[in-house]
């Protein structure tokens, strides 16, 4: 028995110029339209997602269609570019259904490989930002087994799914059922989307209840399971980039604050006890970047190494984001505990992200299988 020791391809862990241009466009949009006070005001309203921001992000800059081929109405780019968008959305802790719609739902549909018909039509709508879709599985699900499939009787979908991220923002729900994957219009009769009170205010959760709702069958059982698996794999892999961006903001802001904040007649950032913590965090962020880039590149190139690259990125980056957000709150002192300082939004997002698409522990179990380090 031996573990795979050689990679099958050499990953490109840098950013291309085009990716940096994309980053600049997204960052500039978010600076204009979604700064911290705006995000805070939004999450306290009934509509955390700003439809105008989404249109600018998804349609005008064209980020929603990055993963979708051009012939289906998308940009024909790759997971590497989508990962850069997610870094920026993580940095801004932006309320937007990007990860759920433009990555997970889109990737699930793409995995069905349909050149035309309803799947292709829906992909075109998603790519151009005309519609938002959500895969109706719990946000914690890391595998299709955890997807709580609904039942189908005579073409009508029935079942309940808890903790679905961004269901309230979705026009279309992709519902795994015992009879394959169904697309159900969110406004259709027999569909109830009940918002929950989420820990992470910037990413709403809801319970989806289907009571004989009309739906369109997109795939049979086997293809549906494979497609959902791929959607969740891409979601977990690119979530690492969101976590990276989030952690980077937390570190940058903490460094900025501790340079300015004086106590004991000197900047608190000059105390070695604090400096070492921030330096340690920097090292974690640098390492998270390598792990997240590796996952994005593996997804983009279709590397056979992808499941391992994704599991490593998730097993590592979840902890870094939580650590960075916790240090951000602590090293900001009292101000870090207040509602008006955005640190809490990052802490809540980081903690929720650490459970999303599988915990670090769950991903380590996957690694144990993939590299043959079995449990006792």
């Amino acid at each position, binding site marked *: *028995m*031996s*573990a*795979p*020791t*050689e*990679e099958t391809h050499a*990953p*490109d*862990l*840098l950013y291309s110029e085009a990716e940096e241009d994309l980053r600049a466009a997204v960052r500039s949009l978010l600076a204009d339209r979604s700064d911290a006070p705006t995000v805070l005001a939004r999450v306290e309203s009934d509509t955390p997602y700003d439809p105008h921001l989404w249109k600018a992000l998804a349609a005008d800059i064209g980020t929603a269609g990055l993963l979708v081929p051009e012939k289906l109405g998308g940009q024909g780019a790759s997971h590497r570019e989508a990962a850069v968008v997610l870094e920026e959305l993580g940095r801004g802790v932006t309320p937007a259904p990007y990860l759920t719609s433009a990555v997970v739902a889109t990737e699930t549909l793409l995995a069905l490989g349909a050149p035309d018909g309803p799947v292709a039509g829906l992909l075109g709508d998603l790519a151009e930002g005309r519609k938002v879709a959500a895969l109706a599985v719990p946000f914690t699900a890391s595998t299709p087994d955890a997807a709580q499939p609904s039942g189908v009787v005579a073409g009508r979908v029935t079942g309940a799914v808890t903790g679905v991220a961004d269901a309230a923002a979705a026009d279309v729900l992709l519902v795994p059922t015992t009879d394959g994957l169904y697309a159900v219009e969110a406004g259709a009769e027999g569909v109830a989307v009940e918002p929950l009170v989420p820990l992470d205010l910037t990413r709403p959760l809801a319970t989806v209840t289907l009571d004989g709702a009309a739906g369109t069958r997109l795939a049979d059982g086997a293809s549906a399971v494979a497609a959902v698996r791929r959607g969740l794999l891409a979601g977990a892999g690119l979530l690492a980039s969101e976590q990276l961006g989030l952690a980077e903001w937390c*570190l940058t802001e903490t*460094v900025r604050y*501790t*340079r300015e904040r004086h106590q004991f007649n*000197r*900047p608190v*950032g*000059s*105390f*070695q006890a604090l*400096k*070492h913590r*921030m*330096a*340690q965090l*920097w*090292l974690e962020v*640098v*390492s*998270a*970047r*390598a*792990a997240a*880039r*590796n996952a994005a590149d593996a997804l983009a190139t279709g590397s056979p190494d992808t499941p391992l690259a994704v599991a*490593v990125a998730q*097993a*590592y980056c979840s902890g870094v984001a939580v650590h960075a957000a916790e240090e951000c709150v602590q090293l900001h002192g009292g101000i870090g505990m207040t509602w008006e300082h955005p640190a809490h939004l990052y802490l809540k997002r980081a903690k929720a992200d650490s459970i999303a698409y599988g915990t670090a522990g769950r991903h*380590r179990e996957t*690694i*144990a299988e993939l*590299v*043959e*380090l*079995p*449990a*006792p």
Partner: protein
Amino acid sequence: MTAPDAAELRRRTQDLLAAHPPATTGRTEFLKARFDAGLAWVHYPAGLGGLDAPRSLQPVVDAELAAAGAPDNDPRRIGIGLGMAAPTILGYGTDEQKQRFLRPLWVGEEVWCQLFSEPGAGSDLAALGTRAVRDGEDWVVDGQKVWTSSAHLARWAILIARTDPDLPKHRGISYFICDMTDPGVEVRPLRQITGEAEFNEVFLTGVRIPDSRRLGPVGEGWKVAQTTLMNERVSIGGARIPREGGMIGPVARTWRERPELRTHDLHQRLLTLWVEAEVARLTGTRLRQQLVAGQPGPEGSGMKLAFARLNQEISGLEVELLGEEGLLYGDWTMRRPELVDFTGRDAGYRYLRSKGNSIEGGTSEVLLNIVAERVLGLPAEPRNDKDVAWKDLAR
């Protein structure tokens, strides 16, 4: 003349191989010819082993030579010379010094060591007390150095010594090249935690160094030493490491081969460390890609920190995993290895040797300060030794 590109370097390498076929050429003879062809370190100036080519093109030459089975200069054995002495001599040496020292250094005919650390000046290196007093055309050096790798093998040493105790500690230091064969240089093995003596204490008693072997101006030794230290820190592995290529490899193998040793607690810790080792490997890969792309990042400063901690945790886990065997130690016989081998020998050795990883080449605490101040831009701690003459500092 424009700098040679990859095709040009490949052509020159082929010419070298044609003129000095590795099969029929002696090792030293081949290495000298390679140096003279400018293919030793291509980013060095012409005439000094290089061709003023981009540093990123060295792998082109190395790959061609490796494929042809050419001998190499065993960079591990002469690491201090290559990584630290050479860039400092290149940066601060006179033409005569460069001509005299670089070729035998690179070829490996002359081994170098570094006389920096002292018993009273480790992390606070600028506090050093070894004195160099001017006497005609010479400097007379007295003092003691410690933790000197390769001193027992070295022909030459880079040395920093205090030339003006009336100045604040950073300003009264000068930088010299010391002949290790001179009378007054005494090298004693320093036995360490593993039972081996990789390192030495070096006692300098009335050692006469001609002024022509000073590197850089009198009193500028600290600035010169910064070049050396920066090069020490960036000289981390150029080679691509395979997955499980580091210290995690032997533990993972033991885990796979000996199911009877497995426990749930060890499994959790092993997986966490496996992930961290894999991420550290990827971070190193990314760093190298940045260097090749001409976008060097500050990540190098962090890599040593990461590897030091990982090596310690992984080797500690390995001792526990081995259970009763972990109670044993291979061999306590005092020996003097020519090469340091972090991953060799048994788990107990690895555990003990890795304790040095967070001390040698800059302690982890100092490296964290460097990251905090130079990378993150955090303010320095207030200090009270900056404007005080060295001789007036409390000791």
